[in-house]
């Protein structure tokens, strides 16, 4: 299986403010009544974007000037809560290719990497600077460099960390681990044979 090597990507950004944005908010549970991930993108942040009658609430993703954004920026502890991969799937299917936040919840971060979505951890002031630049001019292009762990925009450069294992996996095109895990099957059997509870 050949996977894209994601060492750098460029695109427009949109800032969704707030800390502790949980996976229920990213994709409310009722949209998980499905047996495929198809179509989840349209329900991204549904309940904070839509009123009960289907009309729009004020939300950055409802603003036409941010149409075409492929980089999602937010606050601290992004993606906390459930393990639902439906959350990063919805983010990806909406069209986002990367997420930048002050910090991420553990399971969410891993789920993103497995889908080839780089997660960048940046300082609040730096995210605020990027957000201000986007606010001023939504057409400002962000370059997110996984290898160099930095974000370049409007002539500025800020630090943005990508965890070492994720960085390696993205840059070298092995973010979906299945190939490597399958290669390890002989070793899996050896390890399993030493554990009494795994006897068939």
């Amino acid at each position, binding site marked *: 299986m050949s996977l894209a090597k994601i060492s750098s990507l460029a695109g427009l950004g949109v800032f969704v403010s707030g800390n*502790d944005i949980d996976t229920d908010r990213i994709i409310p549970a009722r949209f998980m009544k499905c047996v495929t991930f198809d179509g989840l993108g349209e329900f991204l942040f549904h*309940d904070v974007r839509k009123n009960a009658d289907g009309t729009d609430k004020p939300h950055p993703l409802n603003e036409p000037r941010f149409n075409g954004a492929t980089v999602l920026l937010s606050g601290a502890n992004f993606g906390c809560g459930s393990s*639902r991969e439906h959350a990063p799937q919805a983010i990806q299917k909406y069209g986002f290719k990367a997420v930048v936040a002050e910090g991420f919840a553990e*399971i969410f971060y891993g789920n993103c990497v497995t*889908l080839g979505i780089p997660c960048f951890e940046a300082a609040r002031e730096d995210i605020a600077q990027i957000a201000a630049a986007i606010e001023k001019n939504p057409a400002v292009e962000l370059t997110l460099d996984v290898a160099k762990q930095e974000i370049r925009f409007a002539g500025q450069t800020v630090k943005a960390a990508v965890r070492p294992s994720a960085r390696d996996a993205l840059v070298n095109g092995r973010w979906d681990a299945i190939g*490597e895990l399958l290669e390890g099957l002989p*070793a899996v059997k050896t*390890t399993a044979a030493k554990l009494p509870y*795994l006897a068939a």
Partner: protein
Amino acid sequence: MPKSLFQKVWDAHAVRSLANGQTQLLIGTHLIHEVTSPQAFGMMRDLGLKVLMPHRTFATVDHIVPTDQFAEPYRDPLAQAMMDELRKNCAQFGITFFDRATGKQGIVHIVGPEQGITQPGTTIACGDSHTSTHGAFGAIAFGIGTTQIRDVLATQTMALGKLKVRRITVNGALRPGVYAKDVILHIIRALGVNGGTGFAYEYGGEVFDRMTMEERMTVCNMSIEGGARAGYVNPDETTFAYLKGRPYSPKGAAWDAAVAGWRSTASDPGCHYDDVVTINAADIAPTVTWGINPGQAITINETVPDAAKATTVDEKSSIEEALAYMKLTPGAPIKGTKINVAFLGSCTNGRTSDFQEVAKYLKGRHVAPGVKAIAVPGSQIVALQCAQLGLDRIFRDAGFEWREAGCSMCLAMNPDKLIGDQLCASSSNRNFKGRQGSTTGRTLLMSPVMVAAAAVTGAVADAREVFDVNH
């Protein structure tokens, strides 16, 4: 060198190092349910993969099942489709499915322990963040995403970076009317909802030594609400006594060998912890959440926080956001807040002992007028045990609806949902915006006995006063 349980279990299950520095970790037990597995089976089919260890994979159905309807087809065709899909996948891949007809169906984190599938010194994964529950047995249990479910189905392993270990010791004795739920809400409040990021929590000390397995499960269950991907308690005689004689527990000579093995997996005295936190049990009081994450909690005699008194910008904005949603008055006592719904159940507090404890106080009392109260056993076996103890009758007599097993109103993927901005006193684990199925619904997390006190008085109340608790 002395090792922690986490270290021992990790070492025993580490298959090899992967190119990116993560470990290929063997997952001895894989639990699956209908919500997060269908896409994983789809990926298996697309890649032409087989389930490596079907005998180590166990399925149940919990999130979508209606708790007021046993017969199929379900009223919701999407729920029925998910049920059908799980049945089909289990049949095709040779996986044991605790379907409703077996009498063993229930919330995945209740089924595993009651079947004796959850055992000390093992690794467990499930596509559900509350998989940390199984750590109560001294297992290392991870909530995983759907692509990882595929990985575990196909290889019985997943790629994972090693966690650090934080020892949380709670010494002394809990005061009367203070429960396991209060312990974990207190811990999350103290350490923050992201305080556990990168850590496994090892819970210990006198309070945990004395806890029943069901109480330990309540605490471990909510580890993820504190950001910790796993949480565990070292196995001891309480653990072994719970497991003895369960369907999947070892039998005969294998039992003695297993117990010896389990005993040796406990953390060694003097082992290294990356962090240590000590809490005095006497400082823990009945705790209630007031906000939109489980760390936004206060004790029953405190007042709702006031953004004007916040000491940081972050605190101010989080209080403002939470109170705008919760419609609670800053500075007002939480006690006396009128409720509309009382929910007893979930993988956090849906076990027999939870209903038993509540029934002790509910007998002879009645749910307040205008309050909708539902009690949902976490599994069919819990329901059966409760019926044998006559508890269902006590709940019904008190005005509770007594339901079939399932996740119910914890996350509202089934017909049990809040309506409008109803305020729910809930024994579940998450108070996120919209969590209980209404986009404006409001959740106050608390212990089951506190839920009962709210149900009978119609408002958030101190169960110690309402019930004269002195256990």
